[in-house]
């Protein structure tokens, strides 16, 4: 497959999970290790990403654009953008984090993980299980032992799993 070109810039199409198509400059997606390898090795012009929701993909492309424009003079502005970028409901932030991990966008991954950590650090064990859809695999005896040893781990911030 040959990649299409307009003028000097190569254009690439990303296909989100809802079959929505995003057309962007190839240089932008090189920030993703996964896409970079695909583009370089297979010379594709259209990449399907069925596991990533379009909404998530929109966010990530927005980040890639901003990051490509980053210069020493607009550092402050970029920081503010990053802050706003993760200021979404927790569910969406997790979708973004998973997608970024899949796409291997390293700088953004670290930033997202820190943002998730900041959101969950004060939550109770139950709330964390809910957020990550984890069923406790401890025996009822082990579980009650934990509850006895660290009762505070099971207190507070219980149902607030979305923010």
């Amino acid at each position, binding site marked *: 497959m040959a990649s299409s070109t307009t003028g000097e810039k190569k254009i690439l199409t990303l296909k989100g999970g809802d079959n929505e198509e995003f057309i962007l400059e190839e240089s932008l997606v090189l920030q993703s290790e996964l896409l970079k390898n695909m583009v370089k090795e297979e010379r594709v012009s259209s990449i399907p990403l069925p596991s990533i929701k379009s909404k998530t993909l929109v966010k990530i492309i927005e980040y890639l654009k901003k990051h490509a424009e980053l210069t020493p003079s607009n550092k402050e502005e970029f920081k503010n953008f990053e802050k706003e970028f993760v200021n979404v409901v927790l569910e969406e932030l997790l979708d973004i*984090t998973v997608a970024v991990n899949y796409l291997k966008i390293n700088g953004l991954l670290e930033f997202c*993980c820190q943002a998730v950590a900041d959101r969950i650090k004060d939550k109770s064990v139950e709330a964390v299980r809910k957020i*990550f859809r984890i069923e406790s695999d401890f025996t009822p005896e082990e579980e009650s032992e934990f509850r006895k040893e660290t009762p505070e781990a099971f207190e507070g911030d219980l149902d607030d799993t979305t923010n």
Partner: protein
Amino acid sequence: MKRLRRLSNNRVVEFCEDIIINILHCLPSKSLARFNCVSKDWHKYIADSSLSYSCRFRRWRPQPNLIGFFYQSWETPKRSQIRFFFSSNEVNNIDGSSLDESVNSLGRKRVYIVASSNGFLLCNDLTGVYYVYNPATRQSLALPKTQIDMTDPFVGFICKVDDPNKDVISFTIVRYVMPLVWEFLSTITIETFSSETNVWTANIKIFEPIGLWLPILDKKSSSTCGAIDGVLFWWLENGRHITAYDSVDKSFWALELPNDEEMVPRRSCYLGISSGALYFALNLGEAITVWRLESNIRSRDAVWVRIYKANVVSTILQCPEAYGLGVNALSLKEFGIVGSIGIKVQSMVIHPAIPHIFYLDVRGKVISYDLETDIAEFVHDFGEYWWRTQHFKLFAYEWHQWPRLL
């Protein structure tokens, strides 16, 4: 092992191991301690010290950092208020904000700090119940009621990690009251608590003082200055001897102060432990002299060696403004007084790991002083009248990157 997350439209997003581990590494240790019990996988990622990617493996350090000091005023109406300051500006961004909150929640309990050891605090409330508190995890443990009523007892507290592969600490508490007048041979009732047996036990001990002295009881020195290898040390302000108690073979003895022509026991002298050795400091207000105990800590005959002598006030006066003492020095100059009158070291504390660093209270400002380089640095302003702060006792708080548990 992968955890699946079901979305509303029935598609499944995977939380692979790397993401979870990445997120866990971003969490403060306090949160890790609680998320330990989310699931077996999480327990493994967090606490399995045999895995190079586990949080415990990466964060565990045998040596703690000194992070700062807890203090409590005993003689003001606000005496139950517990405060904290960092030992330098560089450390306060480690886990600063959450530690401050933790201190405040401790203060609401109306407790008094009695002693600190290895990152844990021993507290006492108005009903006489003792608590062991871990500021890093906010874990607290109320101990069973003591068996013997004592008024203002001397208290010792040793906290240690027995097994380096486990996070659980063991601790020992010692309490006793000194008889008011010493006979040549005297008996003392001593009560000890061990976390292993979880009971207080009372014992009568014979104490061999070196002659007769009348101790002057004061709140500040009733708690131990620390312990080395199970031996606890106390020194009373104005006291002529140091009291030692061996918690291993359960014996008491008195240790002589440095026998030096300069040595005059006085209120502002100081006894402290740093990096496993015992130090005694003579404070003459402007200059301080420091001795180190060279003899075996279990030896009854003390051998002291003088190691530092520094005119700390003259260093501070080179630039009093840098320590918040400018106005004071200026107004003295206006009255034609030149020199260090009024600027004195009120009290001091040794750095628990670096013996040549002392924290000095100079007119209500805490200044760290390096006795090897004569470098002084401003650390904290108590924000109180200077004459109040001289009675503050500072409890060193050592912070472990990986929290230890009760």
